[in-house]
């Protein structure tokens, strides 16, 4: 994405995409992508993290309103929003001075891949653990996490590929 999309547009387009399209896919009967976490990947990196945490929480909560899931989406997106800085430091080796100039697309594909896969897996694992809400059939949780993560990531990489202009 060449120019940065402004946050409200990203917020509402992801929200409506998730509740009206992606929540109804039911691929093979039970696999749904949760593409709204792209909000966490694309939100610009700033020193003050409070608004970012709050907006992520709000996006998760809005999706909870529509999908009757209590606060599970809010909780899981909040967790990866909080952990994002740690993984950016780990994978991209950024310091505070670099935050303003950080752009995801200017990094190498390998690093982006590690970063998105880690966050997606964490998010989906938290989401399905709470959606299951018991310690029975944990294999089910792990399988769901794996399949949905693959689906989400494929959609994300296809999306970035399509929306990136070639120079």
């Amino acid at each position, binding site marked *: 994405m060449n120019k940065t999309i402004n946050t409200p547009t990203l917020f509402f387009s992801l929200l409506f995409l998730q509740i009206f399209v992606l929540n109804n896919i039911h691929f093979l009967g039970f696999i749904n992508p949760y593409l709204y976490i792209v909000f966490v990947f694309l939100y610009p990196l700033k020193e003050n993290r409070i608004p970012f*945490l709050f907006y992520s929480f709000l996006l998760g909560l809005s999706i909870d309103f*529509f999908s009757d899931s*209590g606060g*599970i989406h*809010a909780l899981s997106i909040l967790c990866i929003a909080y952990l994002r800085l740690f993984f950016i430091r780990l994978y991209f080796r950024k310091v505070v001075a670099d935050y303003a100039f950080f752009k995801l697309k200017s990094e190498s594909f390998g690093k982006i891949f590690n970063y998105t896969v880690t966050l997606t897996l964490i998010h989906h694992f938290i989401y399905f653990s709470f959606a299951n809400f018991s310690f029975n059939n944990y294999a089910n949780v792990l399988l769901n996490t794996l399949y949905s993560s693959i689906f989400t990531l494929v959609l994300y990489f296809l999306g970035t590929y399509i929306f990136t202009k070639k120079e």
Partner: protein
Amino acid sequence: MQQIIYFFQKFKNFLFFLLLAFISLALTFNNLNFHKSKFVNSANFISGGLYSQVSNISEYWNLKSENKRLAEENKRLKNRLEKNNIMVFNVDSTIIDSTKYHQKYTFTTAKIINNNYTKDFNFLTINKGLNQGIGQEMAVINSKGIIGITDNTSNGYARVQSILNKNSKINARLKHSNYFGSLGWNGIDYNTVQLSDIPRQAPLQIGDTIETGGKSTIFPEGILIGVITKINKGNTADNTVDVTLFNDMSNLGYVYVIKNLDKKEIKSLEVLQDE
């Protein structure tokens, strides 16, 4: 004091994170209690309105199956009416005692505007609410069988706890005998629910029809549920059988909401008994 302010300055992100996480955890735990989730549910003005807009468009895809379901229901009702006519002729009386007339249930039609069936705790949203007389704990059925129980209501919309919800427990019985058990769901297949706690001496066979038992104040007696498809021969405590639903829970359109007019009376009697 300085130390405390410094502490808040240093950990403000983490503290904010903890606060939001606590809120979302509280909402999650509340959501699983039956009609406890006052705030986060799809029966509010915004999500209900959006969902009904979307379902206005998408209902055209289901017109064919909806028509078929209506025609089948009409056929069934007409057959019942014919039987009833013969019964009326056979009754040797010319006086109709209108004072003995007693209505126990009222039916309201509603449309399902949001349907979930792949999660462990599924909820539906319907486009009728408090303004149309829909309250909590009313039965939701369609012509093929039961669908769920209303849970939270707003002015124009109501949330329905689907029978495909791990918390759902519905009284059900065999059609040809009066042995009853409780109907729940194990979260695996959306076409199959589980009937448990049937007495051991009950004669069970594959293909037997299961219907609602009428032992609760929610569902009337004799609403169809499904047929037995698997009987566990093992010596388990709760004697569970698998029941395949008549309804296709993934394709639902218009439904009936049933209000029990005697509910208050029955409930007040039951309260008296407890004291």
